[in-house]
């Protein structure tokens, strides 16, 4: 991020207060994405706006409000877990149907992601997209320059999906392997996979380490069914993610 010579302080003040005209947000987002000075100023203005209610005469919330929030929070939490449990059972009962549905969903997701990424080459839109609903890691080609992959890490921090394209098909005794390289400790395997005739694959992965404790992710080619540590060159890699 670099400083831009032309700052937009008027718009930043209005933005932080929610008073920007319709249609101006994209222009400000774009500027802030490339101007460290304005990004910092906007963060300060947002803090100021958030602190304004301190000047209001405090009103005590209704005594039963917390109970209502807790009750609703409990309903939402089991629903997430229940959906996961049902999903697992469903996968066991009808693996082919489930696999087709997951593949269809991932194709849709990937197409939409590609479309949105193409539309918003940079800036907060991508940032927002990458945070919905968990974390997004984009791997780009190292030894395989035409290849790319996107990892969508689930909210639970332990699983995810990876969409890959541009890798060559492998011989039967070979597999691709995804590795997390922690800041400390040995490489951790996250998935082994092969690609279809078009060089594509959609893979369910496990997330073996917190991304915040990981220095890079790489994909290598290994002997089937996979190795305990990477032996081949890095074909795809990512060093930054959100």
């Amino acid at each position, binding site marked *: 991020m670099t400083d831009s010579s032309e700052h937009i302080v008027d718009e930043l*003040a209005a933005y932080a*207060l929610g*008073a920007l005209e319709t249609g101006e947000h994209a222009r400000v987002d774009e500027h802030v994405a490339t101007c460290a000075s304005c990004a910092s100023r906007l963060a300060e203005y947002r803090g100021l706006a958030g*602190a*304004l*209610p301190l*000047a209001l*005469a405090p009103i005590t919330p209704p005594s039963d409000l917390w109970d209502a929030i807790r009750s609703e929070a409990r309903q939402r939490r089991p629903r997430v877990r229940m959906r996961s449990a049902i999903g697992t059972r469903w996968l066991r009962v009808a693996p082919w149907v489930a696999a087709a549905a997951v593949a269809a969903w991932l194709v849709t997701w990937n197409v939409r992601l590609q479309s949105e990424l193409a539309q918003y080459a940079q800036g907060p839109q991508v940032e927002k997209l990458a*945070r919905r609903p968990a974390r997004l890691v984009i791997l780009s080609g190292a030894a395989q320059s035409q290849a790319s992959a996107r990892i969508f890490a689930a909210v639970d921090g332990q699983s995810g999906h990876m969409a890959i394209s541009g890798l060559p098909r492998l011989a039967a005794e070979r597999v691709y392997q995804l590795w997390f390289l922690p800041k400390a400790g040995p490489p951790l395997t996250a998935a082994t996979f092969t690609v279809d005739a078009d060089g594509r694959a959609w893979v369910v992965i496990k997330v073996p380490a917190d991304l915040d404790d990981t220095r890079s992710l790489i994909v290598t080619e290994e002997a089937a069914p996979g190795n305990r540590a990477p032996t081949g060159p890095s074909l795809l890699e990512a060093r930054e993610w959100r």
Partner: protein
Amino acid sequence: MSIEPVADPELLGRMRLGDESALEALYARYGGLVYTLAQRIVGDPELAREVVQDTFLRSWDGRDTYDPERGRVPWWLMGIARNRAIDLLRSRSHQARLRERAAPPPEISTTHARDPADTVVARRTVLDALRELSDGQRRAIELAYYGGLTQTEIANELGEPLGTIKSRTREAMERLRKVLGPLIQSAGGRTS
């Protein structure tokens, strides 16, 4: 400033793991301020309740995620609450909007019986900073933040040129920034 037993970002981290006590602690810290803000914007206890509930549930189920680069946790929560309240305000009848817009400016805050000392200081600091602004500057900020008006709408409302409203808003925010900068950036300043 008092030392917080658990930092706000840590509470959010525990919430992501489903720790209900972290949500309760966050509500205990900021529920009152969120409710006060919501009441000021929507002017209706039932709607304010809805705003508070939605704000904390959004932080709980991950529909809104906290980004430390964009400021402290309470200012993030206020942003969610303000946007929800303005959405509700805009969805109501024009008459209701007019009535709320005609509401008196925020009362001067008095010390709340349950306020911890650091909150008393924070409230006093913000009040003093707002008093330093001109009436026109303060009005422009209030119409934007609490009224949900765009700058063009504010200019129409006050019968002033758009450029005047823009410069007034910027000058006001700059003056507030100079006075409130330490409060905004400090790790303390817990509010209730």
